[in-house]
């Protein structure tokens, strides 16, 4: 029985965090940097970025809360790793079982036609 409105299932609450975290371009930029080079310290992440150290720290906290970034301590260094599992779960939820092959072909085609500038 649901009295009013809709109750957000715990699964959806987890997904909301992922969508909110991904909605911000600076946070996506941080994920891109980890995708290119996984396991970076805060200092390494701040290099060549147009963001203050405080801003990066804040964004990383949101990404960690959404389970998109996982910190691992190595000695006194905190290394940040990109965790793609929640993104995979989101994709899986809406991609039908027979669509995957065709989607991959379309994605490849788009990449080729656009000259892989965004690859």
């Amino acid at each position, binding site marked *: 029985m649901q009295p009013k409105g809709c109750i957000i299932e715990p699964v959806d609450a*987890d997904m909301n965090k992922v969508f909110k975290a991904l909605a911000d371009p600076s946070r996506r930029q941080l994920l891109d940097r980890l995708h290119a080079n996984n396991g970076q310290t805060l200092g390494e992440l701040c290099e060549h970025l147009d963001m203050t150290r405080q801003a990066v720290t804040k964004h990383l906290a949101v990404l960690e809360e959404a*389970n998109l970034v*996982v910190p*691992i301590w190595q000695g006194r260094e905190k290394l940040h790793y990109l*965790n793609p599992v929640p*993104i*995979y779960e989101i994709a899986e939820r809406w991609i039908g079982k027979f669509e995957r092959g065709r989607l991959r072909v379309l994605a490849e085609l788009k990449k080729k036609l656009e000259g892989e500038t965004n690859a």
Partner: protein
Amino acid sequence: MPSSRFVYVTYIRTTPEKLWQALIEPEFTSRYWAETWQESEWKPGASWRLMIPDGRVGDSGEVLEIEPPRRLVLSWRNEFRPELRAEGYSRLTYEIEKQGESVKLTVIHEIEKPGSKFIEAVSGGWPMILASLKSLLETGEPLEETRRWPEGI
């Protein structure tokens, strides 16, 4: 020290005991891990093999640490692709931690080698396998993508 490492975390609504079973028992792994199963006596120093449905050994290694239902560390070498086998042994760590109603599973796969082709190759599979494991334990059904061993591999 230079190394290649990937870290995966997923939260699963289950118990540490059930998750432990799902990580090592063939009737579970064959459902969410592309029809594969593992052979081991599951004690420190025991050998460990991941078997592929066509009868080949996919990967092999040794149980380095085992502490049910909390921690399992394996050495892990690919056996069916010579260029990956040549990289030698990697290290796979599973950590299981109860957090409220859920269990946090951390998977770390690493090798003391920068730019490892092996770690790159397995990194394509882990997110899918872990998402499927979560689905199996929470809904009773694994993800479609992981039900069969991929053809031609």
